[in-house]
């Protein structure tokens, strides 16, 4: 073959490598099964304010059992309301959030402190491959009620990279936003340049606890990005089959996304996964396993037809 063009291939210019573990038909089947689960079984929602938002948005809400059943069209409309993923190249971030910290100077393993949160943020600031910082350790030396705020301050003081803040209440979201607003010049500026974002985890199977719904609602109101990240464990908190686990996972994430969009049409959300299998020999989550890798690929594929950015456990 004689090359007749300077550009023989576009591989190097724009990577088109795509690892896939699901067919288009598989993705459709998982989506359809998810809609059935959301419509017929529903999700448990702990908080009254979130129940109100779901009820106003067209869900069938049973106040007695706190079960929310979402008609397919409500779910589809919520997906369509999300700002579409911009297709930017993959970004990497650190783990959020460790209970223990290994001090690199002494080798000591101990509970994390505010200074460790600061050190972790400074390391991420320096490392060329880590694009975003996420609250790496909980400052155990700060008052328990404001530890997340101390961690957010330590992060913003030590890195100019985007900060994923730890928040388990609407109040913490507001205060972290206030801190980030100090850096960018105000809450309106923060909306334009969201240097702080949040993340929530439903509790598998099929529960949206108060901390998750408060953070979803408050970040949507403030116009700040939020990741809804499920942590189902196949064989424990979701079906032992990975396909069934993806259905439970998808139902949980989409119910959170629906709440965000019913709160604020066009809220910035991403589709997260730390879902994996439970090693049934030890009753422990298998992280770093082929199952987590398979689910990670599947989730990245599932987020694409939804036009949602995906955030996958990996590094």
């Amino acid at each position, binding site marked *: 073959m004689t*090359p007749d063009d300077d550009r*023989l*291939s576009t*591989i*190097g210019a724009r990577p088109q*490598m*795509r*690892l896939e*573990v699901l067919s288009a038909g598989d993705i459709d089947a998982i989506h359809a099964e998810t809609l059935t689960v959301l419509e017929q079984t529903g999700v448990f929602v702990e908080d009254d304010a979130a129940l109100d938002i779901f009820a106003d948005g067209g869900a069938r809400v049973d106040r007695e059992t706190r079960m929310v059943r979402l008609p397919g069209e409500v779910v589809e409309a919520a997906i369509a309301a999300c700002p579409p*993923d911009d297709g930017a190249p*993959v*970004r*990497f*971030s*650190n*783990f959020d*959030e*460790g209970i*223990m*910290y*290994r001090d*690199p*100077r002494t080798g000591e393993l101990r509970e994390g402190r505010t200074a*460790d949160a600061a050190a*972790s943020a*400074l*390391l991420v*600031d*320096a*490392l*060329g*491959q*880590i694009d975003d910082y996420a609250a*790496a350790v909980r400052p155990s030396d*700060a*008052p328990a*009620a*404001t530890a997340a*705020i101390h961690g957010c301050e330590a992060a913003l*003081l030590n890195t100019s990279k985007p900060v994923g803040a730890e928040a388990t209440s609407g109040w913490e979201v507001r205060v972290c936003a*206030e*801190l980030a607003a*100090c*850096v960018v010049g105000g809450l309106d500026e923060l909306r334009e340049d969201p240097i702080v974002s949040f993340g929530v985890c439903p509790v598998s199977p099929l529960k949206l606890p108060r901390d998750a719904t408060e953070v979803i609602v408050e970040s949507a109101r403030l116009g700040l990005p939020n990741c809804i990240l499920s942590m189902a464990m196949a064989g424990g908190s979701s079906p032992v089959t990975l396909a069934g686990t993806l259905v439970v996972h998808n139902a949980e994430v989409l119910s959170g996304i629906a709440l965000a969009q019913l709160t604020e049409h066009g809220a910035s959300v991403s589709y997260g996964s730390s879902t994996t299998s439970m090693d049934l020999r030890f009753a422990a989550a298998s*992280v*770093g396993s*082929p199952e987590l*890798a*398979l689910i*990670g*690929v599947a989730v*990245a*594929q599932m987020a694409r037809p939804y036009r949602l*950015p*995906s*955030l*996958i*456990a*990996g*590094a």
Partner: protein
Amino acid sequence: MGHEKTLTAFAAALAGASYVYGAGMTESGVTFDPAQLVMDDEWIAMIRHFTRGILVDRDTLGGADIAAVGPFGDYLSLPSTYAHMREQSQPRVMDRRVREEWEAAGATDMYERARRRACEILDDHQRAPLDDEVKARMRAVVERVDRERGGASGR
């Protein structure tokens, strides 16, 4: 430590994930380890390198060089080698030297080199400067919420 991270992060990156998180984590998320973060930074560089793929064009096919070098020369001193050498992967805490050189340099394992690198960064690196006024405003917010909800600041 390395194998598991590569399996999961590599798969997610190749699948077209928007974000991959978890660097610095050990023990299934119990412990955050700065040395692990430095090692993960290096795995990620390798993963990124792979996802950039292989560029095939007139220049990279190298026909003129192949003809000029023939079967008996080498490519070390060619201008094209110099021009492209910085595109190579350049791990820093992974050690590619032969055993004798590694032993002469102290025979440290990867974790130890990553730990030292973490300490160097903590000693030397500085965040882009923030205005003192910004810092003071943030401190005022934290002190206010400590008064409102936290009780005494610190133990």
